[in-house]
């Protein structure tokens, strides 16, 4: 369980140093993207249109923040992660096309994303679900917001963060996935639980 502190843009070589169970803190640009922003970004790529921000080497955060606006200035009031599995649908293409190095979310992602992280060089950093103020305090500035027509939760928020974390590296770029390992051992416990409760499977 080593601790790493990375600044964006993060290189592929750096991200490949990370192993599952390491703890990571990210300083620099973190961009939020949920279902709708993933979908739109991939459509843009298909049409050859540039994204509002170049994502290479950045961290993408599965997050729909609570925001407030005074004058022209946005503030992230609460900004914990959303469930990442919904983005499994898009993430392999996303990593391939945009060279994002860190995906931040909660709940983990599946085999398709794990394979893509190994292939293109990226990690999944789990941030504690619901720990929204812990996250917001590490967001020092809302640099801009794009695609606000998607609604504030689904818009693309561009945050300046300082030591954003702790992120538990739970999918690394070497094919390891803590969530899939836990799911396997949970499956193995199922029979024991049935037995304790006197259930026939």
């Amino acid at each position, binding site marked *: 369980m080593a601790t790493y502190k990375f600044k964006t843009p993060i290189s592929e070589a750096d991200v490949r140093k990370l192993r599952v169970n390491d703890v990571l803190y990210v300083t620099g640009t973190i961009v939020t993207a949920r279902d709708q922003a993933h979908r739109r970004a991939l459509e843009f790529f298909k049409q050859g249109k540039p994204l509002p921000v170049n994502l290479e080497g950045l961290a993408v955060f599965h997050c729909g923040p609570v925001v407030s606006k005074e004058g022209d200035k946005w503030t992230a009031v609460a900004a914990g992660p959303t469930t990442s599995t919904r983005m499994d649908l898009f993430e392999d293409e996303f990593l391939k096309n945009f060279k994002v190095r860190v995906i931040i979310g909660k709940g983990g992602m599946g085999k398709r994303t794990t394979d893509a992280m190994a292939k293109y060089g990226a990690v999944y950093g789990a941030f*504690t679900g619901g720990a929204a*103020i812990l996250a917001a305090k590490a967001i020092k500035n809302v640099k801009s917001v794009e695609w606000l027509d998607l*609604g504030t939760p689904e818009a693309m928020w561009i945050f300046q963060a300082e030591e954003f974390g702790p992120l538990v590296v739970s999918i690394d770029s070497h094919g390891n996935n*803590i969530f899939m390992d*836990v799911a396997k051992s*949970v499956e193995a416990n199922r029979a024991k639980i049935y037995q304790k409760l006197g259930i026939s499977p």
Partner: protein
Amino acid sequence: METAKIVETVGFNILKQAVIYLPDDVKAALKKAYAEETSETGKTQLKAILDNIELAEKYKAPVCQDTGTIIFYVKAGAKAKDLDKIEGALINAVKRATKEVPLRPNAVNPFDQKNSGDNTGRYIPFVNWEIVPGDQIEITVMTKGGGSENVCIGGMIVPGEGINGLKKFVVDAVIKAGSQPCPPNILGIAVGGGADISMKLAKKALLRPLDEPNPDPALAKLEQEILEAVNMTGIGPMGLGGKTTILGVKIDYAFRHPASFPAAVAFNCWAARRSTARISADGTVEYLTHKLDW
């Protein structure tokens, strides 16, 4: 003051209390879980949760950015005045809280995907009504996170399998949910009635405090048995492994049709947000779960 104004103020206050300050029983359960968790990664998650709860209180900001779907439970005294004004007043309270707390706008039209921007829309906030004797109005708000909602499950058990069928249904639901609902979770479980009734009761069961066991001793025992069983899964805090998967199990039931055994499991995330206030006929307000303190 007129009822509508009072209800709007109370609705706003309980919403604000709920999203910022977790109930004491939930905080106590999380502290106990942190002390007892043996998985190192699991402990880091519980630590982050406890730190976050403190920060939310300090900065008076919502404990989680998903401020949920807003659901009210109203116990309306049959002799209370202006009952027809309550729903409108609660809608106004939600709009105000969305702007002023602030809350995340979480009401989306399922057909055109447009977010209303103020947490209101067709049937939202949802108001559950119960007519009770007397002239008081008791209002509870639950703000229900999406992650834990996505794994709620209703189904039909073969009546011949009875309670063992229910136990299997619950264990399978927890294993299937895995890391998705922000464990540690609270489970509301209900059987009987019908598909809709069991789910409604399961969700409502989440309002019972964690330190209040079921008043029926047999069901209290079943709650404990299921709690111990589901914590053997090893899913752990945030699904990263550990022995704290479920903080509490709350069971309710309705009588069932001889041929049907409907069952429902409602998951709540660790940010189990609820708050209750009571309005008396003379307009005085009593906050029952939180101190009015900001």
